[in-house]
Structures are given as C-alpha cells and as structure tokens.
C-alpha cells in the first residue's frame, strides 16, 4: 500500500463508513456496538484488497461485504435466540404509546434476514431491483417477491397500528 492508497482509504472511510454502519445496523438489527465490530471486519477485507479495488467501485464491494456479514451475523443470532428461547417468549401486545416508527422497525426485525436485507437495500439504500439482485447474488424475480412479501407485512402492521390507536 502506498501512502496515496492509505489516504484514499481514509477518504473512503470518511465518506462511506457511517452509511455502511447504518446499513449494517438495519440489516442485522444489532446494536451499534455489534454492528461496529461487523463493519470493522468487513472493512478489513476492503483494506486488504484496497490497491486492487480502489478504482473499481469500492463502495459496491464494501456494501456487499457488509451485507453478507450482516446476514451471517443475523442468522447466527437467530439460532442463538431460538436456542435460548426454547419456550416461545411472551409476545406482549405493544402498548399504545409505542410509536408507529418503532412498531414498523420491530416488524422489520421480525422478518427473515434476507427479506429484511432486500427491504433495506431497496428502500433505505434506494438501490434498483437489478442492483439489489446483483448485490445479493439472486435473481430479480426473487428481489421482487421478497420485497413484495416484506412490504405486505409492513403494511399489515401499519393498518393494525392505525386500527389500534384509532
């Protein structure tokens, strides 16, 4: 790595790391602390290949690494949770004062990991169906159906929330 590579990497971090961190938090539903660890690991990969990828859309590469890591972490956590909660946890009815935003985010966290990743990429990162498919390594059709099913769940939650607070 040349001095110039190093400073270009620093610039890349300054410009992109907050967005990557936010995406990681949304995809794996983790705390900022856990997500930071994940993003650091992903960025180490970026750093390792930096001289090769820096001129070839490093942002897309970094995003893919982060998403994959987030999906892996999220699945692992789910397994742990399922083991811990061998008995299903009490699903308390949310209090009325819980905001719609919180309710929707909670619903987002309950979605299957890859479905959640599709929603984050499509509606938070504003990627196209094509870009999302490339990044997730699946077909455009899968992106469409996952997004539609995820949105349907969100919509359902919205209407039940509106019904409850009316």
């Amino acid at each position, binding site marked *: 790595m040349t001095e110039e590579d190093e400073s270009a990497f620093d610039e890349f*971090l300054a410009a992109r790391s*907050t967005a990557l961190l936010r995406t990681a938090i949304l995809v794996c539903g983790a705390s900022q602390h856990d997500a930071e660890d994940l993003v650091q690991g992903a*960025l*180490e990969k970026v*750093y*390792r290949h930096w001289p090769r990828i820096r001129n070839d859309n490093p942002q897309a590469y970094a995003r893919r690494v982060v998403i994959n890591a987030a999906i892996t972490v999220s699945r692992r956590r789910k397994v742990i949770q399922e083991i811990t909660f061998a008995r299903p946890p009490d699903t308390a009815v949310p209090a009325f004062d819980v905001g*719609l935003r919180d309710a929707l985010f909670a619903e987002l966290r309950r979605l299957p990991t890859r479905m959640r990743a599709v929603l984050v990429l499509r*509606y938070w990162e504003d990627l196209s169906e094509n870009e999302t498919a490339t990044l997730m390594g699946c077909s455009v059709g899968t992106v469409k159906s996952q997004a539609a099913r995820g949105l349907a769940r*969100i919509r359902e939650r*919205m209407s039940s929330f509106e019904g409850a607070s009316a």
Partner: protein
Amino acid sequence: MNAEEALKEAMSAQVADVQATPALGGAVRRRHRGRILRFRTAGAALVMVAIAGAVPAYLAVTSGSDPTAAPATREAAATVRSGIAVPDVVGMDAKAARRTLEAAGLVSQYKMGPRSDTTPANIVVSQDPAAGAEAEPGTEVAITLPAARPEREPQEAINQELPPDLGDLGEEGGHRFAGVDFVYLPEGLKWTHWFVRNTFGKTSDSTMWNDSGKNTDAYGIQVIVYSGDAVDKISERMTGYGKQGAEPIDIRGKEAYLVSVGEAVGELANDENTPPGEGSTRTLIWVVNPDLAIELMMSPDYAKRIDGDAELKKVAEALRPAE
C-alpha cells in the same frame, strides 16, 4: 403515507443518530495487522521446524532456491528476538505514533479518551505500556486520543417535536428549551414548533412563540440561548451597548440591557441604521452564568399590542436554568 415511505422513515429514525467514529480507520488497520501477524507467525513456525528437522533443509532455504522462504526466515528471527523498549509516542499525532510503534516492532491500538479542550483529537495523550517499558515484539501498545468534539452544524427544524435533549416545549405543560425553564410567558403565546441550532453562533439554540402557534406567522417573542464560547461574544456585545450609551438594568442580580436594536448586530438602533418606518426590535440580553447567556426579542408588531418592556422583564425574571 404508503408502506415504502413509512418503512423508510422508520429506518431513518432508527439510525439517524448513528455515526461512525473517527477511530474506525485505526481499528480496521489494527485488525489487518493482527491478521498479517498471525500468518507470519505461522509461517515462521514452519521454517523453524524445518531448521530443527534437518540441516540440508536449512541450507536449501538460505541458498535462495525458494524465493518465498527468505522473508519467512527474517520473521523467524524476529519472533525470537525479545525485549523491545517501548518508544515514547505521547504528543505525536496518531499516524506518526502508529509508524513509530510499527518501526519498533509493536502494534498500536487506538483508544478514545475523554474530550479535551486543549489537545486536538489526533494527538496522543497517553500510552500503555509507558515509554521505556520492555515489551515482546507484536505487543499491543494502547495509545489514547481525545474524543473529537461533536460537530455543531447549523440546523433548522420546522413543525418537528423538540428532541428530548433540547427540551419539552410542545408537550402538555412543557416549558423547557435548551436547558432553560421558561416559567412565564405572556398570556396567549403558543410555541411555534420552530427551532434552530447553532445558527446564532456555534453554540446557540433559538425558538419562538406567537399568538397563533404557527411558524408561518411572525414571531411574538423569540429567544436565543447561548452556551459555551458564544457566551463570551454576548459579554462583548453588552459591553458595546454600554459604550453606545445604554443603561444597564437588573435581572435577578445580573446586569442586563433592555435596548432597541436594528439589523446590524451589536449596534443600538439609531436614525442612521434604522430607516424611518422600520421598527427596531426591543431586546433584553444578559449573561446568566459563565455558560449561559440569553437574548429575548419581541417583535415590533407584538410589542404594540401589549406592554412590551414589562412583559420582556417578566419573562426574564421568571426563567430559570434547568436543574
């Protein structure tokens, strides 16, 4: 609102406060070095086994028939060397400290310390182990940098709820804004759901009230709450008012100025700077404590309808820094 928008908003709200730390670059590089170190150590161990196993193997390595073996031998030598004196890196900037430690065969680990008013965020304030201590090669030396001061970006918010750290105006019975409890306001004034941060100097917050409670209408009373460095600026401005001939008044034991000001900051309204027909603004300004100054302004239109000066004084006498 459709589901896509609602979802996007929920996601935005969830991560709005998330910021990557400036220490991230250091953490990534540290991980990278940690990884490299593991590889090299493993490689070195293999060569050592070869040396122990058979002399011809050792000769083969040094004869240069295998170009990859030579660096590994050097690493092998490095792993058996020990007792590096830790260099002194306190006072260096973070990059120089990293290079110095690396050159000595040590690994730097950035740590974030408390915020400092005197030391910039990229200067090492302490290290562990201390300078001169003996350490094995590859030992992590923790170097502490002061946390960066939070950026204070100007921000305007319209028709939003106050963030909890800024107060509770708009809630039932809420009267707190920017660390000040506005216990009294003239009857009928409503909060307008408008506020700006860091617009009147780097550390200031401002909001307003009027009859309608709508921020599309003119203000009745506007307040600017100054803290930190901005307080000094207010002291200077008050001294200036005194020099221009204004007489101080007393607000709960503090010197204050109740003056008419025009457009120009720091100048009392006079015939020159305030064209006839354009009202000047009655302004009450004082320093409450070394970290808090307040500027209350009443719009000329509103002042015509009430006893403006008396109301400004009542607001000022009643307000209290929040506990």
